């Protein structure tokens, strides 16, 4: 992959003597990459990459672009040490992170970061493109919290946009998702999100993840079926209908959809009232990834 003036990071993972090895790792300000040797069990062939920003966050106007290539048969896990803070926008500047990832045949990329938190007035744009072949395996967690919500800063940023695209065999789009949350006179972000402070999306794709996809689909269905109930017959007729008001809004809502040719992928969307609830969800449902990555995702993170 060519390094250009704007490239902040490049990582290449290839098989060397039969093991996944980082054969190239380049980074420059404002990105820092750390490659710890002993994250997972040494029985498992996987490399771990930690992506950090200087100062623990993304400053107004920062442009970070990163390329990662996971060669045939290799496994790589990319994560963060803490949530990514996006600081307030100065002079209406927008910060941007772009990731281009290429995943080879029977290769496995797990992108399992902590959430993004945009502070008041922040403007942030994120774009992640994944180029796969039919034998590729991919796990992507993309999530955001409403801000420093315990201090009352809830969905107070100016603009957040996150786009995730998956292309099969170079140019066939099989998943294009773009979420835009921006200040609007039509409808406030906080009003749209109601009581919920966290939104998350989990993508699972590839032959090695077929079992996990089926398992999560059943688990989510089972979990949500008990939370969903038809409204009582008194709906709307009596303003103080206790039966209706007593029904609490669920702390966590999740739904699972398949996508792609022959349903090759699954996407799980989660919204929750606390970050802890989503960490717990991810820890529980992604724990079986330990066999591929050497360590279970999100076990040292959050609370």
């Amino acid at each position, binding site marked *: 992959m060519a390094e250009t003036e704007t490239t902040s990071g490049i990582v290449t993972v290839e098989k060397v003597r039969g093991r996944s090895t980082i054969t190239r790792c380049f980074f420059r300000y404002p990105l820092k990459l750390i490659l710890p040797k002993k994250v997972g069990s040494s029985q498992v062939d996987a490399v771990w990459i930690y992506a950090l920003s200087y100062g623990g966050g993304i400053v107004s106007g920062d442009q970070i672009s990163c390329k990662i290539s996971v060669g045939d048969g290799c496994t790589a896990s990319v994560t963060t040490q803490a949530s990514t803070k996006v600081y307030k926008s100065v002079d209406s500047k927008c910060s941007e992170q772009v990731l281009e990832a290429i995943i080879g045949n029977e290769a496995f990329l797990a992108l399992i970061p902590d959430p993004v938190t945009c502070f008041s007035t922040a403007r942030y744009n994120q774009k992640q493109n994944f180029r796969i072949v039919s034998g590729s395996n991919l796990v992507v967690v993309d999530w955001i919290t409403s801000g420093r919500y315990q201090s009352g800063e809830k969905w107070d940023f100016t603009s957040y946009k996150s786009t995730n695209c998956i292309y099969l065999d170079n140019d066939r789009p099989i998943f294009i998702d773009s979420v835009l949350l921006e200040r609007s006179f039509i409808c406030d972000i906080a009003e749209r999100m109601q009581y919920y402070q966290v939104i998350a999306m989990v993508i699972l794709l590839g032959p090695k993840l077929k079992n996990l996809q089926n398992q999560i689909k059943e688990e989510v269905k089972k979990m949500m*079926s008990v939370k969903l109930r038809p*409204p009582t017959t008194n*709906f*709307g007729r009596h303003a103080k209908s206790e039966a*209706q008001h007593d029904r609490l809004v*669920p702390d966590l809502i999740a739904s699972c959809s398949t996508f792609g040719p022959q349903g090759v992928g699954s996407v799980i969307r989660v919204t929750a009232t606390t970050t802890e609830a989503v960490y717990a969800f991810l820890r529980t449902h992604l724990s079986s990834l330990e066999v591929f990555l050497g360590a279970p995702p999100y076990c040292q993170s959050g609370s």
Partner: protein
Amino acid sequence: MDHSTSKSCTNANHDDKSLLHWTQWQLLDSVLPTGGFAHSYGLESALQSNLIKQPEDLKPFIIQVLDNTGSLFLPFVHTLNKSPDTETWARLDNLLEATLTNEVARKASATQGSALLRIAASVFREITEPKLIRERFIGSGLVFFHHACVFGLLTGLLGFDGRMAQRAYIFMTMRDVLSAATRLNVVGPIAASVLQHEIASEAEEIVEKWRDRDVEDACQTNPLLDTVQGCHAYLFSRLFCS
């Protein structure tokens, strides 16, 4: 037989523009059998998640659904209205298939689009594409007949102006959600009509905000509603398909 000659002279004076009004009204009339009333646009799921607790919650819900319809679907309606050819339609239909990552919404879109194309082939016989597209593509697995794409294509072929086509798409969505709301007993039919008139100004703002964009800019603006709509298949008892 004398009177027939003077009658045919009068008929020849009806210009295409007047006839277009009749076509537009027919396309937007709920009497057109496109099966829109099988879908609640996530309303049924939102009710069962208790996100809508009282009738007053309906108005903001509808406005949010329309805003998301604008951001996600209007680029497809607009582009096909401008370029209503089969190749563009097939390409954008595949793109929308990849963009509708919510399985519930994706299936609803394909069902409604197929129904609309079938009706159009029978009713609007002055345009040949609907019939030709159905003959070429049905059963091929190459296209999905998504609603916004079929609608955009039809409006382009029938000669609707672009802004009118996009406004019509938002109007139809509002019409269908309100219909679902009355069938789910959230509001009565009169209250629904009152709401429809009240929301018109916000709906027009939504059209203004999202019209005439490229499909590369299509995005969703309400992840909460997207998550909730995705739960539709988990509802134990349900009236609607989506």
